[in-house]
């Protein structure tokens, strides 16, 4: 039972870590972690919220 709990914790940490990295990248407005040419402008787009990723140049701080 204890081993199961540990495995659950490990999986939770991995998944939470991945999610946190995605969210923090989005918040920073940094480049899309996926694009090989990341940094080409303001591609803070990630999945769902991409509609806010407009073409203004100002968002690229």
């Amino acid at each position, binding site marked *: 039972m204890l081993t199961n709990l540990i495995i659950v914790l490990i999986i939770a940490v991995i998944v939470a870590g991945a999610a946190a990295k995605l969210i923090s990248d989005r918040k920073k407005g940094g480049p899309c972690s*996926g694009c*090989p040419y990341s940094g080409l402008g303001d591609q803070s*787009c990630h*999945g769902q919220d*991409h509609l806010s990723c407009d*073409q203004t140049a100002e968002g*690229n701080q």
Partner: protein
Amino acid sequence: MKIALTGNPNSGKTTLFNAITGKIEYVGNWPGVTIAKKEGDVKKALNKGESRIRVVDLPGTYSLSPFTGEESITSEFVKNENPDVIINIVDATNLSRSLFFTTQLLELGIPVIVALNKCDLLHKKGIVIKRAELAEKLGCLVIETASTQGHGLPELIEQARIVYGHQQTAPFPGLNANVKDHAADDRIKHERFAFVEQLVKVVEMRNVASNKQTGQDAADRIIAHRVLGIPIFAAVIYVVFSISQTHVGPLFADYLVGWIDSFYEYVEGLMGADVSPVLSSLLLDGIIGGVGAVMGFLPLIMVLFFLLALLEDSGYMARVAVVMDRYLKRVGLSGKSIIPMVIGTGCAIPGVMATRTIRDDRQRRTTAMLTPFMPCGAKLPVIALFAGVFFSDAAWVGTAMYFVAILIIITGALIVKRITNEGSAKSYFIMELPDYRLPSLKRAFISMISRAKAFIIRAATIILLCNAVVHLMQTFTWSFQVVEPGMENTSILAGIASPFAFLLIPLGFGAWQLAAAAIAGFIAKENVVGVLAVVYSITNFIDTEEFVLLSGAGDVAAVMGLTSVAALAYLMFNLFTPPCFAAIGAMNAEMDSRNWLWAGIGFQFGVGYTVAYFVYQVGTLMTTGNFGAGVIPGLLGVMFIAGVIVFLIRRNDHKSKIELKEAV
């Protein structure tokens, strides 16, 4: 303190920016690579002062009067955001053009430093520039740099700190930049060039006139030849794929996959037998297996990235643009349409964003709609998987995918032109042809590492999450019971994917597992690989002999239940349907029209379906002598798609005839 980097396109601004900030922004040896401003701090090694120095890299421009959108970013920034110092990067091999922009910058009152870049090329081209005299005549500092080698950069930053706060005075009287009157503006522009011409006459000596034929021009005549250009391009891409996919890539990949496999076994052993099978399977098959399958392709992709970076650095891509422009112009696209498509081979998002430079609405929207057909970096593992498993790592698979993409783009543009019928919008094409140069291994290496890093981050975040979710959906039924062995069809995942799988039967891949992988591909295309690994419990797609030994169940192809023809159809379906959601978001932003967006997505689905249908049915007919399953329903589907397109074209023909009549 804030420094703005300005200069003509392809003068080396971004390379200089990377060198002084230590960042890795995308650099290409052709104009128009930077489409938005980028910021960074000067790295510690170069900054001798206490305060931090902010550097802003701006898109290249030839003057302060903007021509396209990305150039206006530059003029607006320089005029409105009051940088403390302007570093004007001047291509030393082309003073007579570059200094026109310099004369405009000198009038802004902000201290200007001219970085005489590409100085390393001067000797080779037989050019001598009297730097001191140039500085004196311009009334500003002139520093020789070679940003590709980092030469002259410490001095550049040092001088920027010194001139900070000074007032710049223009070296010539009476050229007020703020005139509104067009005739006066014209006169001033002429005076500017006259000033530059006189200046260049004094400070520059050339052994060879620049308008004489060179070896490069001779090379261009072959490489960008109207007939030869295309087979040369095909050969280049073939070589790239045969090195990365057939020869060098698998060499490294076998090692990596071996490590991933032993890691899998290590974790399996660590957990022992008393762990709940649901949990161990989630960790092993869902997370490690799924991410591992994608990561296994990293070596292949890295070799590919390295070779593509070499190509971009060499100046070849600008020639490809010239060859392709001819075909794109004929189908009503802008001459500039080729640039987004070449960028799209890296990632569709910046590719779609690069359509911003196209001024005509219809051409911009069409280009944004068609750019995602180019196989992007995320699609490469998918190509590599199918080429590896079904076609024994043949290089023609990857090459063919690029050329099918080009064919689809040309046909697609033709259809859009017929539907909208505004093809008469005149657009001119002009592009600077950069000099060929020996590509730098170091730059290609840096580019490869940064792209590999992005690939790994992506695998460890979005791909990992998707795989975990897919695995859970596969493990549980709708009533949240664990799926019974042999009852895999009752899982949530099967339930969601089955209706879609039904539609895919005529394409040769009506299994819910394959449908699920294709759907997950809309979140990120690498998911196709990850999800296939999860649903079929295959970690190792590369060392397939190893897999046969381990599973004993036959090879990967047999597990997936696909013939080679169906596999090719499935690969093409994944490549030529709509791109990932993020790219669709970019399409939405650049198209700026809901109608166009939905039409574009609909078109992309139609293309994916039609291409896969014909590849499967015709291929099956050729290999077995009979059509594949669902040939008639599929034909109805394809005819429906064709019917919609024909209807739209007819409607438009009708409309334009009415308009003509009214005009009469």
